[in-house]
């Protein structure tokens, strides 16, 4: 018998709520315990690793679009730091995927900061398309 991560956390949350919480007399401790229970319920634990992988893939796809957009105009090439698009490789651990996600998000954050100064200098019209790609990736 192997409970899934969601089953385990749901069981823990139930015990905290039904068995422990009624016996916590201090109002501050009780409020913090309720917050712990709420936080346990706000993550889909079974999906956590897959959500990180999907977020990494979206970030890498958006970065590839940004790199292509930059490369298509010499003026952009001189304005933007080269966009480093990580290779999507098979990763063997959750930590590795998280590291790649953070790398891609860091590159996106830098690109957006440079895009802001680009738009201030050159107007917004020519970058609206790449902006839509980025916002779609981040809003998903």
């Amino acid at each position, binding site marked *: 018998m192997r409970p899934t991560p969601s089953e385990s956390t749901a069981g823990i949350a139930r015990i905290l709520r039904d068995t422990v919480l009624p016996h916590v007399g201090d*109002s*501050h401790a009780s409020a*913090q315990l309720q917050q712990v229970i709420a936080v346990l319920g*706000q993550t889909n634990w079974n999906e956590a690793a897959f959500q990180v992988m999907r977020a990494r893939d979206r970030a890498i796809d958006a970065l590839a679009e940004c790199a292509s957009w930059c490369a298509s105009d010499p003026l952009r090439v001189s304005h933007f730091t080269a966009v480093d698009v990580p290779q999507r490789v098979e990763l063997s651990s959750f930590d590795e995927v998280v590291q790649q996600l953070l790398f891609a998000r860091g590159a996106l*954050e830098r690109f*957006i900061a440079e895009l*802001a100064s680009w738009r201030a200098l050159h107007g917004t019209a020519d970058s609206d398309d790449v902006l839509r790609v980025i916002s779609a990736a*981040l809003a998903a």
Partner: protein
Amino acid sequence: MSADEGAALSSALEDALSSALGVRVSVQGLRRLSGGSSRENWWFELEQHGETRPMLLRRDPVTSVANTERAVERTVLDALVHEPLPTPVIVAADLDGGRLERPWMVLECNSGRADRSVLRDRDPFRLGPAGRLGLAHDLCDLLADAHRLDPATTGLGVVPVDPARNEIDRWSDEWSRVARQPQPELAYAAMWLDEHRPPPPQRPVLVHGDFRPANVLIDDDDGTGRVSVLLDWEFAHLGDPAEDVGWYLAPIYRTEHLLGDQWTATMFLERYCARSGITIEPERLRFWQVLATFKLAVIALAAVSSFLDDSGDRAAPPTDGVMRTLMREVRS
């Protein structure tokens, strides 16, 4: 906090208050209250000359989810004490910390209680639909009244030249302070905010900075739900009245601050504008609504940071939800 630590704090508070008030006083029944993400709130009874009065100790936590200006709340509350606005009265304060190690202030404890869901259908104060609508009107009027105060009487100095720029910078700085990981959503929103910055308001006002049902005490003894006092002035500053309105009407708060068809954002705006005499253009409101969500995202980030640093005692969920909300708002 252990019983020993509680007793030590109670004793330190007794000494600090006796020193501040110039008379020996006694502190009884000190207990931590729930709530307060940027300050610790403690209730106690102060005994002085044989009389007891309920008091509220507000003390900075070890790390705060918002790096608020400590002197601001004291300055504003001191300045507003003679204004016709229900604000807390400071009994004593030490912004250097002194005996309590961290900045603190003691306020007179007003009657009533705060509940962020006071307007929601679960109706924690049993006000009924008409009572909740009346309270919603009162909250709107309270904000309008706060904005009618003369900024010169607030003790907050001069009005900033560009309030929108100021707030973008303020919350971007806070983001830099608490960031542990890249946040492209915040970079994107900061760019959007900069590109949609409204001109300075025609009539700058005293901005509360965190005006919402969670920050008023409601006196429900007679079942009418009267506002007893407006709390939490630590984010107060001079600026654009649309900032408070945008915060109250931020889409993320819709179910908490409005009442469906009975009390919509349009109704709130109409009543607010009629009472305050201030007009708020749709583009200006939109900017401040997005800034409100940006600010909420930074505060959520600070909460997670504090949680992961082992310095906070409040569990914090991932910020994915509020970041997605922010992105939806700038895309709409």
